[in-house]
């Protein structure tokens, strides 16, 4: 990918991702409500929530908390920019980890028991999804001979044909990353869990609004990775890829509404088992055949 396309990718991401992410969250809430036999909020509800949070009185437990949350938002955006500029997938994954660490530190800094338990669980969740995320990057390298996102989407082959196991494994950890039940251990979009609001217990007003928008950016970028599995040089592949992204998101909503929250041990064990069976075996086969 040359410089112009990179710049177009970054600008589009910066402007469109929050809009698309917010709409996706709205559709998510509507579909969830329908699955529960309710009418549900308007599609634009996440935006109303966001602007309301901006209007509220700022209350912070300590000043440094806001700084960490801003870093979280900043690094999520940087992660997405690297990705949509067609950059290195390994760099993308590690920047994402850095961003998450800032959120964890922000929660720890508040000294509130709910936030701290939430932060510990977030760390455990990171431990759970990280191996599979790295195997995903390695898988793309074995198929395309490069870690670059740009090379993957312009490649001659469809990645999912060679990486079906990796794809399944990635969809599995997507449940953790999108904060869906059964793995919404550290915080959940549904009120009244046993941890109150977990990680975000001590954040209110603007700070909370920034966390929301960071999640919209993050979700779009995560669906971007799903897109990478399908898209290749063929003209029709982007269309199929977008459809697959929607299908996967719908699947996650379905999973979310069908499971109760599980213990962290199950989250950790199951995602490592999935990474080892689906991910690692897929890589081994690829290694011996290719």
């Amino acid at each position, binding site marked *: 990918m040359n410089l112009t396309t990179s710049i177009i990718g970054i600008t589009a991401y910066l402007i469109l991702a929050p809009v698309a992410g917010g709409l996706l969250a709205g559709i998510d809430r509507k579909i969830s409500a329908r699955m529960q036999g*309710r*009418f549900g909020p308007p599609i634009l509800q996440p935006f109303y929530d966001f602007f309301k949070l901006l209007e509220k*009185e700022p*209350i912070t437990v300590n000043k440094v908390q806001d700084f960490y949350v801003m870093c979280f938002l900043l690094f999520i955006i940087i992660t997405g920019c690297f990705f949509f500029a067609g950059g290195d997938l390994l760099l993308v994954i590690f920047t994402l980890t850095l961003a998450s660490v800032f959120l964890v530190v922000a929660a720890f800094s508040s000294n509130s028991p709910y936030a701290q338990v939430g932060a510990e669980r977030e760390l455990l969740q990171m431990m759970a999804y990280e191996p599979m995320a790295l195997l995903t990057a390695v898988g793309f390298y074995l198929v395309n001979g490069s870690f670059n996102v740009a090379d993957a989407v312009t490649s001659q082959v469809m990645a999912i044909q060679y990486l079906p196991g990796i794809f399944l494994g990635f969809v599995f950890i997507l449940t953790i990353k999108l904060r869906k039940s059964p793995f919404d251990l550290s915080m959940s979009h549904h009120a009244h869990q046993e941890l*109150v*609001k977990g990680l975000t217990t001590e954040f209110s007003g603007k700070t909370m609004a920034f966390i929301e928008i960071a999640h919209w950016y993050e979700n779009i970028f995560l669906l971007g990775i799903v897109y990478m599995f399908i898209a290749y040089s063929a003209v029709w592949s982007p269309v199929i890829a977008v459809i697959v992204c929607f299908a996967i998101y719908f699947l996650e909503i379905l999973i979310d509404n069908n499971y109760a929250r599980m213990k962290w041990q199950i989250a950790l064990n199951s995602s490592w088992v999935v990474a080892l069976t689906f991910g690692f075996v897929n890589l081994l086969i690829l290694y011996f055949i290719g």
Partner: protein
Amino acid sequence: MSYVTKSPWIIHYDGSSCNGCDIEVLACLTPIYDLERFGIINTGNPKHADIFLVTGSVNEQNVNVVKQIYEQMPEPKAVVAVGICAASGGIFKECYNVMGGIDTVIPVDVYVPGCAARPEAIIDGVVKGIGVLAEKRAAMDKKPAIMDKKPAATVQTEDNEEA
């Protein structure tokens, strides 16, 4: 336009009630009434809440809890007292430990009558509360000094010392 009217988040606290009103509050979230249609979320966290929905009266044990929840909520905020107990103490008024309605400790904006209050009445009360929120929000714009008041965490510690 103020967005607070479009996304009022609620925190529900049960004081000394018989639990009758609480069941009705939860009934508001069921598919029949579905409060989320109006963007209302029943959050468990005072720091995220805009409307404080209290059922039951205040007693010597929960008075600090009621005060703390109220003080941890960021402005603009509204208090809706649900049921006769929350309004005046109701049938528990004469009990040795009951101090009275919610307005004995925190300012109440909307009273929802009934024993138990019906879900329709509760929804009506919350919608009135949204009106109060809009007024308070407009007042905040006129008087920005409210934004500089002491952070809730400090207030909370003072309360603990009192207790």
